[in-house]
């Protein structure tokens, strides 16, 4: 690993001269994208028409099939091919001499490099984060539409199709296009740096997994323009409602496949990177907890994601090919959908939180100037959540009519998950004890997370107890719980990470005052929005309804107004990030005086991260321990290593 060519920080040698004339349309890039997309669409269309005419099926132009094959499958492949995501592999597979790696697709020298297939994990990290925030805004606006409709009983702003489409797509975008990939983006940027590695293990795969993401997102947005409107069966897309839906549901089915493929590829990449590319001396017990968290998350992603892929393919086949997976009239099994779906989607809840746990461990330890309390138990509790996470899926199905003997075992495992989660909360609290706390923006988000996540975790204990769950299933209480868990476990932690690593990513400091304003408005508005939902839920307000009885009108109006404040608070964030990126004061390499490796290089880091692979000599959290070092860098290793060993 140490023979990496670094050549200074500006790798410009060997790049071919830019092509001219019509040849510009042949090289990888945005000029090649439109005609490749058209070509691949035509290929898909031709395939469908050819097969249908051979089989003699009527009608020849069957739009559901054409949309699935040509529009949702081959055309996105054309987009990727046009952009050049497959170039290297295609050259290799066809036996062409693969071009020598000149690093021209690695690192960003201008903003245009962020719109290319770039193999630098830092560029990809920023691409991920920008894309996910884009879809976060769309998902947030959909939530605003949902809340506007719910502000009063009756129908005001949209019809039932619009409303169901809005909340379904809100959840789908937030889960598959914001939370999961935003964590992947942060980890993409940080994990190789923390490991002392020059990049991810498979940079080209990394680039491909990013570019699958905008495809999935645009597909979901495009579903609003499909005949019959956006998918309207909830993000859970339960059969047999979803198997009798207009075309929009096909967009959902396929978007989940693209997003799922993206996260599986990234997860594999993380696993290989973490297992094989740790710097010398970086044993598993010396890895920062963020790396541990992404290691566990990646295991979850790799093992669980194929299940949701399967469930969505079955729904799509039932819709398009008229199979009978979930058609009870023909021997299909309606509950089977839920078992397969939740076998992914419960672990997915941990996929959406464990990376956040990692971020919080980093931030709290650094900002409290203390070693993380109970480091090994913190890492082991992640693994405990991983294992238990696969044994609790049916707690989403306590009222579903599944075999009733499944309920008590699933309740026990569900309640037991509170134990490792509790260990983490208590350890974060203990890390604060006798520390020197610095209440800057990342720390505020971290502490906001710990307090709010405690509420979300405890309302999860209510839901774990079957009798209570039976009462509150599918009510606003569930909406409250899921937002306390995921808004804190994912959004708060992503914010903590975004502020914490912003100086590293951009080389600029953000505005601390605006960061605090952002935190406090979000924190207050978040609680005003979601806490009352517990109450109206237990009292009888179901979820996923556009209209409701007048006795909940006052609370709903209050919730809606709070949610608009919550939505508006994100403007402060974007304003802060954009202006600071341009005009903020330059950031030093290590503004937080942190020990982990990403802070030991310049901000932003050089293209290949480290001039010399660091030598890890100790734990990453030895704050307050005199003379303790995490790693030796930049030629310091020969002299100081001996000193440390003595």
């Amino acid at each position, binding site marked *: 690993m140490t023979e990496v060519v670094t050549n200074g920080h500006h790798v410009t040698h060997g790049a071919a001269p830019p092509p001219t004339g019509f040849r510009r349309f042949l090289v990888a890039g945005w000029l090649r994208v439109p005609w490749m997309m058209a070509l691949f669409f035509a290929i898909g269309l031709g395939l469908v028409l050819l097969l249908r005419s051979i089989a003699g099926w009527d009608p020849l132009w069957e739009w559901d099939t054409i949309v699935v094959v040509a529009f949702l499958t081959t055309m996105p492949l054309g987009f990727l091919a046009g952009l050049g995501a497959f170039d290297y592999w295609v050259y290799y597979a066809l036996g062409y001499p693969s071009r020598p790696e000149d690093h021209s697709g690695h690192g960003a020298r201008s903003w245009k490099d962020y719109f290319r297939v770039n193999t630098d994990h830092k560029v990809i990290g920023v691409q991920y984060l920008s894309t996910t925030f884009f879809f976060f805004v769309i998902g947030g606006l959909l939530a605003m539409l949902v809340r506007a409709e719910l502000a009063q009983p009756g129908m005001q702003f949209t*019809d*039932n199709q619009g409303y*169901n489409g809005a909340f379904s797509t809100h959840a789908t975008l937030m889960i598959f296009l914001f939370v999961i990939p935003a964590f992947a983006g942060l980890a993409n940027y940080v994990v190789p740096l923390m490991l002392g590695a020059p990049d991810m293990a498979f940079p080209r795969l990394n680039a491909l997994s990013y570019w699958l993401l905008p495809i999935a997102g645009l597909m979901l947005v495009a579903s609003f323009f499909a005949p*019959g409107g956006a998918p*309207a069966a909830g993000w859970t897309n*339960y059969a*047999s409602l979803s198997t009798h839906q*207009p075309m929009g549901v096909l967009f959902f089915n396929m978007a989940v496949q693209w997003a799922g493929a993206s996260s599986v590829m990234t997860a594999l990449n993380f696993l290989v990177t973490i297992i094989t590319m740790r710097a010398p001396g970086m044993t598993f017990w010396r890895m920062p907890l963020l790396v541990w968290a992404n290691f566990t998350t990646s295991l979850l992603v790799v093992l669980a994601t194929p299940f949701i892929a399967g469930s969505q393919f079955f729904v799509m086949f039932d819709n398009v090919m008229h199979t009978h997976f979930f058609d*009870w*009239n023909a021997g299909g099994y*309606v509950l089977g959908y839920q078992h397969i779906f939740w076998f992914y989607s419960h672990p997915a809840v941990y996929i959406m939180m464990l990376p956040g746990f990692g971020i919080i461990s980093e931030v709290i330890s650094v900002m*409290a100037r*203390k*070693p993380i*309390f*109970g*480091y090994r*138990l913190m890492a082991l509790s992640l693994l405990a959540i991983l294992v238990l996470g696969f044994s609790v899926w049916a707690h989403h199905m306590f*009222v*579903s*009519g599944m075999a009733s003997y499944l309920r*008590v075992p699933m309740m*026990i495992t569900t*309640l037991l998950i509170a*134990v490792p989660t*509790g260990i983490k909360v*208590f350890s974060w*609290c*203990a890390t*604060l*004890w*006798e*520390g*020197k*706390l*610095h*209440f800057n923006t990342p720390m505020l988000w971290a*502490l906001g997370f*710990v*307090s709010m996540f405690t509420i979300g975790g405890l*309302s999860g*204990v209510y839901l774990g*107890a*079957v*009798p*209570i769950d*039976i*009462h509150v*299933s*599918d009510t606003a209480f569930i909406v409250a719980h899921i937002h306390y868990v995921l808004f804190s476990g994912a959004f708060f932690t992503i914010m903590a990470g975004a502020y914490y690593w912003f100086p590293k990513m951009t080389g600029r400091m953000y505005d601390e005052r605006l960061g605090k304003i952002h935190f406090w408005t979000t924190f207050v508005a978040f609680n005003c929005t979601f806490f009352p939902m517990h*109450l109206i839920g237990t009292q*009888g307000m*179901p979820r*996923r*309804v*556009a*209209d*409701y009885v007048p006795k909940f009108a006052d609370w709903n109006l209050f919730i809606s107004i709070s949610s608009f404040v919550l939505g508006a608070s994100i403007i402060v964030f974007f304003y802060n990030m954009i202006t600071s990126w341009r005009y903020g004061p330059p950031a030093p390499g290590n503004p937080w005086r942190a020990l982990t490796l990403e802070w030991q290089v310049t901000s932003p880091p050089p293209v290949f991260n480290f001039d010399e692979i660091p030598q890890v000599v100790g734990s990453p959290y030895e704050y*307050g*321990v005199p003379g303790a070092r995490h790693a030796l860098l930049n030629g310091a290793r020969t002299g100081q290593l001996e000193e440390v060993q003595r």
Partner: protein
Amino acid sequence: MRRGAIVQLLLFAAVAGVIATIMALYPHWLPPTASEQADRIGYVFWYVTIICAAIFSLVAAILIYSIVKFRAAPGDDSDGQSIHGHTGLEIAWTAVPFALVTSMGIFSAVVLARNDRTGNNPLRVDITAQQFAWSFKYPQHNDLATTVLRLPVDRTVRFRLRALDVIHSFWVPEFAQKQDAVPGIDTFVTITPNKKGVFPIICTELCGLGHAAMRSTVIVMSQQAWSKWVKSASKAAGGGGGANAGRTVFDQNGCGSCHTFKPANSAGKVGPDLDKLSEEAQRAGKPLEEFVRESIVDPNAYVEKGYPANVMPPTFKSLPKEQLDSLVQFLISGSGGAK
């Protein structure tokens, strides 16, 4: 540890505990219960609430205490104490939550078992759910059918649920019991109403565009009043037919939850207004009777402007012929079919 830190911490915890207790007691978290099962669920709810309030107070106290006491002074760049862990504490906060959740699990399992008990002679009620209506049958009383559920107080009811199209879920908040109705399988739920009154029946599983309108009512009445109602209702059903038959079909299939139709006193807004059927038939360019019949059995053949297709369930094509005929007659007569 600092002297007095524990005392101060406990003080913070006590304050947080008082606030949490007020939060737990002041709003009415659970609706007034109206079944034995709801009462037992309430016990679990309060047991979990006590434990959760205690744990929340503890965490809140540690956080607030740390924020107040361990704030770094401006310009203080020193590090905190290098505490790496404490085996005793770590064992404690693994073991204590383990014990607490286990106790909740046992309590819940006992309540669950008690709530599923039906006793010797439960009243049996068959629930049929379809987009977007509930209908009920009493198999022990000659399959007496109704769209408003009536139950005697203090008698255990064993419900059997069936769904004709997609998944629905039967919930009466005051009964605190909930059960999905799943196409293709029979599901069951047990409820013992113990208060007289009128309560809403709510569908809580997203079942399509009319989901919010899929509501009905349960009336819990005294045993005598209920027996009387069964007798009179059975007689009325036996002598059925004629003009009332169409109205019965209309009610039992829940047409009114989506459609406005004055003769049936319904005011649903999901689907087109049935008081204007003749104008709609004109727009469709079809004779009224043919149009009405076609709209029931093949709803997508003509879709009224301003309403999306695929909302009206296609299941009504399976209505028995005589029911369909009477429904069509009822709709035509109500919309001034002579015109």
